[in-house]
């Protein structure tokens, strides 16, 4: 009989675990919580200009976390949420291979029309010219258009599960490193 409430509690705690973003609570004035330090993920911040810089590397990059796929002409793209876009040459499908990586921090989505690649760089829409693989570059940007993409950007949370230092949303997270952190935020 005792098992059911526990199961329910368990289910609810998993359900609410998706709300980690709201758990960065300051202690009431005049008090302080005991803040235990544990091994976890610590955000690495970058200046806005560096964080939003788009860079194309004509060599394959290791996959950190695989994301959405996209097909355009003889290419296949795969998002590495938060880090960039893998480019796969599919001219000969039986010999398809990774050929490059578009470094685009804070990205999560992709769409292409007429050799123009549309993706997001944190909450900006950014347009890349993809017509010449030797010269993939940013041609324009609409700033702060996606109101929910900034704090919910895949890079706003660590790549693995466990405790992490709640990021400062006023800054740009560009990476995560293992470090000792105060246990306040947790990712399941």
């Amino acid at each position, binding site marked *: 009989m005792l098992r059911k409430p526990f199961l329910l509690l368990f289910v609810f705690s998993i359900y609410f675990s998706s709300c980690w973003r709201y758990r960065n609570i300051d202690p009431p004035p005049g008090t302080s919580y005991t803040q235990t330090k544990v091994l976890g993920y610590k955000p690495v911040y970058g200046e806005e200009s560096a964080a939003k810089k788009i860079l194309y590397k004509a060599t394959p990059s290791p996959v950190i976390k695989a994301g959405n796929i996209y097909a355009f002409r003889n290419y296949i793209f795969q998002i590495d949420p938060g880090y960039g876009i893998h480019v796969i040459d599919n001219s000969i499908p039986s010999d398809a291979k990774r050929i490059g990586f578009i470094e685009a921090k804070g990205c999560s989505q*992709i*769409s292409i029309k007429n050799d123009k690649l549309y993706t997001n760089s944190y909450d900006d829409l950014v347009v890349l010219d993809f017509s010449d693989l030797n010269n993939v570059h940013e041609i324009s940007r609409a700033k702060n*258009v996606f109101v929910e993409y900034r704090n919910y950007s895949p890079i706003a949370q660590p790549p693995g599960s466990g405790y992490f230092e709640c990021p400062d949303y006023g800054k740009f997270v560009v990476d995560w490193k293992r470090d000792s952190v105060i246990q306040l935020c947790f990712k399941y």
Partner: protein
Amino acid sequence: MKKLIHLCILFCSVIYLGCEKNAEGTSAASSIGKGGSLAKFTIIGNYVYAVSSHYLYSIDITDPSHPVKVNQSQLNYDMETIYPYKNRLFIGSKTGLYIYSVDTGSSPRLIGEAKHGRSCDPVVANDSVSYSTLKGSTFCGPATSGLYVHDIKNLNAPILKKLIPLNDPVGLGMADSALYVCNNTDGLKVYDIKNAYSPLEKMTIQGLGFVDVIPFDNILICWINDGISLYDITNQLQPVLIKKISN
């Protein structure tokens, strides 16, 4: 006189075809690429349409060197995915399937919806049928997991025609006569959809964890747990593995 009428019909249909907006391509010849069913970005005509949990955005890309956000609607659907077909957007959310018309370009207009229990929900569709997978789970909500088939000939009132229970469905993709449904480690299910409202299971490809697919010309592009795999779908109901790219 008969000739004239024929010519007139031909002329009108050419004009009508011209009206069809340039939506996502199904082939390498198209000027617009094709996304998987889990995408949150898509392009129809001169607009990028994007969703986040509570917003639907329209961005005018007539001049790619000067993209402009022209609309942002707050919708409390918990949106997950967006899928384009002709001048329509099919939005999969945690509470249902929502169909928008983009005849006006900048401001999508709600024209139909099919609500369901809370779950995760990617969708693919054409003129008459929509296929969506719902995954009930502690994270997504309690709906019955499976493949949901809706008759959408009347967009204002989609009718649920069939529910095929599946354990762990994720992304899905539609070719002319086949529907591919990813079931994570339960494999990729291939359905014959000649009878659109009653998909017939033909085979299951086992051994890889399937997340999402894009049927693209004669190639089926699959996002699998540990990389990307490509299948020849010259025979759409009999995918043949031609390449696996590991992460």
